[in-house]
């Protein structure tokens, strides 16, 4: 039996052990959904490199890590620890999820804006069954093994609903923190975000860690935008450098809705983000922005699918990578234009900046077009800082180090600059420059 097979068998058998406990307080309809999910996982298994979607990303180490999918006992993270994790300027107005479970006592947000509902998914199952049940029951369009695993083991996560025609001014900020007790465990947060007709919101999903040992965040988020709704979804992945982070996000867009995602990946030994956006109705606008900055031995992987299934849809995708140390980046972005999706306008671009000699990138932007009246473009680049730009800055008196810092920051700024809301953007700017500073210091020390 290979390591991958052994790990798969381990998770399937752990499901049998945990099934009764998982059922616990959940409504009866959830049990068959979980069972179907573990069956799907049993069928798909841990992917090998022969699987096209996993060609450049190995899960062998993850399989070997022998992690337990049963969530840890509650550890009671303190508010001070949350504040330290977030940094002084951004400690207010966060909804905190500890090892995947909603922790109302840690959540500093005092009052909810009108029209916004936020609670733990577990607590919302009964009241919002009509909304949640079909989403949990939906077959994964992309056949992702770890999304299936999440479906089997998920217990809680965030449930966010923004009521029709409301527009909360502040971003809705969700923090997923792995506690010390997450060591050796898999945490499976399941999030559902529903923006009702004509509403407009910004939702932040931030992943951070207090855990000193290996753990695995295996998150699944489902987003539904009603007609003419608008959402900026900001993902900030700041897991520890020995953690595994796999995240799937599914987006379903109704007529004339506008979705923009901003995925910032900074942490994790292995961090993989999978986004599947289905443009199911006419006149939909979808923007996928991403920025990954890795160094050391980090491996970061972004897999995105934009599925144009209706006419007059627009999508723009820009993922930028900055890679130092011996890190490895993977980008696999596919844009699919189905036969009915006439007048589609799709752009996709993945530029990468290598700041060390040993970093590497595998990038594969793909377009599959089955309609004839469309405008589509795609491309990717892998390069270094522009020598002419470097010389220009130096010729004005800036030393090499400052010039490099400025140009690298400028490369990232296109993604960071598109993030709405000034305080949020500043928070991310600070995280990005701290990460770039670390990458550069490592380079200079080498």
């Amino acid at each position, binding site marked *: 039996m290979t390591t991958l097979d052994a790990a798969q068998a381990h998770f399937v058998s752990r499901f049998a052990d945990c099934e009764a406990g998982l059922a616990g307080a959940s409504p009866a309809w959830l049990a068959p959904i979980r069972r179907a999910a573990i069956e799907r996982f049993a069928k798909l298994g841990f992917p090998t490199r022969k699987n096209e979607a996993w060609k450049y990303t190995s899960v062998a180490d993850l399989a070997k890590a022998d992690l337990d999918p049963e969530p840890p006992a509650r550890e009671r993270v303190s508010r001070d620890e949350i504040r330290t994790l977030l940094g002084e300027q951004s400690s207010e107005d966060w909804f905190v999820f500890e090892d995947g479970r909603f922790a109302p006592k840690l959540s500093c947000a005092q009052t909810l804006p009108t029209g916004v509902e936020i609670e733990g998914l577990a607590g919302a199952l009964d009241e919002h069954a009509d909304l949640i049940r079909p989403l949990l029951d939906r077959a994964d369009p992309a056949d992702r093994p770890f999304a299936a695993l999440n479906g089997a083991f998920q217990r809680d996560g965030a449930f966010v609903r923004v009521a029709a025609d409301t527009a909360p001014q502040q971003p809705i900020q969700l923090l997923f923190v792995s506690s010390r007790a997450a060591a050796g465990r898999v945490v499976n947060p399941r999030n559902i975000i529903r923006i009702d007709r004509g509403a407009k919101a910004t939702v932040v999903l931030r992943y951070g860690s207090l855990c000193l040992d290996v753990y695995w965040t295996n998150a699944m988020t489902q987003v539904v935008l009603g007609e003419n709704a608008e959402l900026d979804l900001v993902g900030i992945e700041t897991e520890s450098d020995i953690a595994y982070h796999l995240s799937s996000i599914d987006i379903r867009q109704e007529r004339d809705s506008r979705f923009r995602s901003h995925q910032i990946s900074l942490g994790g030994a292995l961090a993989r983000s999978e986004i599947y956006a289905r443009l199911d109705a006419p006149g939909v606008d979808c923007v996928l922005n991403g920025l990954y900055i890795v160094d050391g031995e980090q491996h970061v992987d972004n897999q995105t699918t934009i599925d144009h299934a209706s006419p007059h849809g627009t999508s723009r995708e820009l993922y930028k990578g900055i890679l130092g140390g011996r890190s490895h980046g993977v980008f696999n972005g596919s844009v699919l234009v189905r036969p009915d999706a006439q007048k589609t306008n799709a752009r996709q671009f993945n530029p990468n900046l290598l700041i060390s000699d040993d970093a590497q990138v595998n990038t594969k932007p793909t377009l599959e077009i089955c309609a004839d009246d469309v405008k589509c473009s795609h491309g990717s680049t892998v390069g270094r800082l522009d020598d002419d730009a470097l010389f220009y*800055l130096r010729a004005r*008196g800036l030393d090499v180090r400052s010039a490099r810092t400025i140009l690298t920051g400028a490369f990232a700024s296109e993604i960071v600059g598109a993030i709405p809301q000034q305080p949020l953007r500043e928070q991310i700017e600070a995280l990005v420059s701290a990460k770039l500073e670390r990458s550069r210091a490592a380079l200079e020390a080498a």
Partner: protein
Amino acid sequence: MGKRTPMLEIRGLRARAGGTEILKGLDLVVGTGEVHAIMGPNGSGKSTLANVLAGRPTVEVTAGSVLYQGRDLLPLAPEDRAKEGIFLAFQYPVEIPGVSNSYFMKAALNAVRTHRGEEELDGMDFLAFARQKMKLVEFDEALLNRAINEGFSGGEKKRNEILQMAILEPRLAVLDETDSGLDIDALQVVARGVNALRSPERSAIVITHYQRLLDYVVPDYVHVLADGRIAHSGGRELAQELEKKGYSWLEVAPAEAAAP
């Protein structure tokens, strides 16, 4: 006065770029307070000379010496040359998306000021200072907040170079075909920028393809560069002669013509 250390003293300079020898034993002395014009046909080495002075890494100096204010210039990094007062106005200014012009100029000015032992300027003081200079070169303040040269017209890029020069107040300004592609109004702006810096303490090397600029920036000396060497030197009247006759009469016998 003759004993005064020249601003720049180039002896036997040879330099390669892209595997080809471009400068083939160039001699040039620029006195302090002087403005020298360098003219010459395409490919004669004008831009290579400018790049050697600014320290562009892709140009390799293989022989000769360059003394700047009596000190060996060649070992200095480009940023150190800038801090010591050398300024190159680029023939093709680079577009740098994501870096605002004002941030860049303030960082550059403060790097230079720190080197001179002056206090750094904060945002307010910088803006006040920059506004005076923008007025001088008729620079649209809106461009100050845009990314460096991004989407600028050719004329705006050249004005941006002159604005940077006005802000950094160099001791030796080297203008690499700054007048190329400019209309007469923009040309006068460039000239005003250069003339404003003229003083007994500062020098300038104005590289140009056209005699026109020299009607507004009147040089003390004019040199003709041909095949990597100074082929001919003279006063300002040489520029007018070149305008009438072209370069061919000089290229016939560059060796004899070079003799002073």
